[in-house]
């Protein structure tokens, strides 16, 4: 990597303690470096600790073993330098689309006129013009997720953390949202860490894909996945298909392991 790493994850382990039941080693000795404005996907079966790693970077869970540095500073709690988008949108249901987007700007202390204008700009950016006064319960899943993305982008975090953001959407909407995310990302470049279990999504969106193994969660390998994202026929390109195949083979064993299925 030519650029100095913006996010350094150094030998992080994390023990998950459920309220009842026994402890699980969710992450085991995970190290990863992410450069400024790089798009990295964390790919793995459910239960591999990829969301846990994202929450640690977000500062929502305490780093107990190892270290996570953002621009050389250790993570100490959540902060507006890292915006997060969750799978189930996590919009405030009692606020309208506009109210949701304004919230982060209010917390940043942006003057009223400026934040109203900025909120409208981002409503425009994600194509929700005309829905700014709707409540989340009145919107489709795709519109809710676009609101959530606009809310996070609006307060301009350096780093965008995305936790299976399109996982709750139907296949068609997901495809549209993926290309929309790329379009937005190309216009407002940010460092992105994108958690997914969808191989094609990871290869399409990310510059690099970190493949994780399940129980304990480890980074198995990191694969370069740089393609010309603006190529409309990318999904049919031979190199792309081969890359998806290669990653699918890496993930398959882990998915089988994670399901607890044993060979007969």
């Amino acid at each position, binding site marked *: 990597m030519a650029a100095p790493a913006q996010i350094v994850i150094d030998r992080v382990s994390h023990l998950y303690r459920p309220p009842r039941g026994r402890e699980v080693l969710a992450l085991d000795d995970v190290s990863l470096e992410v450069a400024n404005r790089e798009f990295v996907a964390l790919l793995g079966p459910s239960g591999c600790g990829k969301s846990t790693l994202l*929450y640690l970077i*977000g*500062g*929502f869970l305490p780093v107990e073993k190892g270290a996570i540095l953002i621009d050389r500073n250790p993570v100490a*709690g*959540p*902060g*507006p330098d*890292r*915006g*997060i988008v*969750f799978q*189930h949108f*996590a919009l*405030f*249901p*009692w*606020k309208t689309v506009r109210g949701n987007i304004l*919230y*982060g700007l209010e*917390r*940043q202390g942006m003057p009223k006129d400026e934040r109203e204008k900025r909120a409208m700009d981002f409503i425009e950016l994600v194509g929700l013009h005309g829905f700014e006064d709707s*409540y989340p*319960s*009145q*919107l*489709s899943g795709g519109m809710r997720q676009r609101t959530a993305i606009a*809310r996070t982008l609006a*307060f301009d975090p350096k780093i965008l953390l995305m936790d299976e953001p399109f996982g709750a959407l139907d296949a068609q909407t997901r495809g549209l949202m993926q290309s929309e995310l790329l379009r937005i990302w190309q216009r407002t470049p940010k460092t992105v860490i994108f958690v997914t279990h969808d191989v094609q999504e990871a290869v399409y969106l990310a510059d690099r894909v970190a493949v994780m193994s399940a129980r304990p969660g480890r980074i198995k390998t990191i694969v370069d996945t740089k393609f010309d994202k603006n190529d409309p026929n990318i999904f049919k390109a031979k190199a792309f298909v081969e890359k998806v195949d290669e990653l699918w083979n890496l993930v398959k064993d882990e998915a089988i392991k994670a399901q607890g299925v044993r060979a007969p």
Partner: protein
Amino acid sequence: MKQFIRYLPLLLLAVTWELAARLELVSNTALPPLSDVILAWVDMIKDGELLTNGASSLYRAGAGLGLSIAIGGVLGITMAWWKPVNVLLAPLVEIFYPLPKSALIPVTVIWLGFGDGSKILLIFLGCMLPVTMGAFNGARSSEQVLVWSARSMGANKLRMLWDVVLPSAMPELLNGIRTALALSFILLVSSELIVAQKGFGFLIGFLGANGSYDAMYAVVLTVAFLGFAADRIYLLILRRTLAWREQTP
């Protein structure tokens, strides 16, 4: 028109009442004719008796309920959010919850005398628990990801309580307050019936003891109507506050 049909049974009841009393199917001491009750009501409005007693009752109920909402709401949310507060208060709430609060009427009188203070305290104590439980259950149900979202957008912990935990608690909190509202009427009238020198409950007891049954019924109906009206108005406020929840695509 729909509303009219819905409340038609009330009209039927009124007619039956009037006829039963006029035809002396029941004794007029047990049930004076409704028309007499209405006349007694008009008289009591004219001489101001109903208004002065009503004002003092509403003041007691309002003050007790207001205190219980403010203090119960804060208690419930802090119990949900700070473990030590929960450990300290949860057993007290559990023990106190099933106690019939009217049992405290003599206690509050010993403490604060025959005036407003003892009624306000009783209503406050009786109404606080439903509010506390509503706030507690509501606050506990606030979603982790919403809390995290607010924190990542720069909200500190206190701000997050106000911006996320309180609105998340709102549906259950408002239902708890509705229960408290109904309870406040019950406690008000029962405490005034037993020991008071003014108020609706006092008036009902006093008129009953003096044999002015038409006037007594007039006060009973007034209290019933006020309870009903308070609940309706409250429901309107509740629907408006929770508009975000009821709207579906």
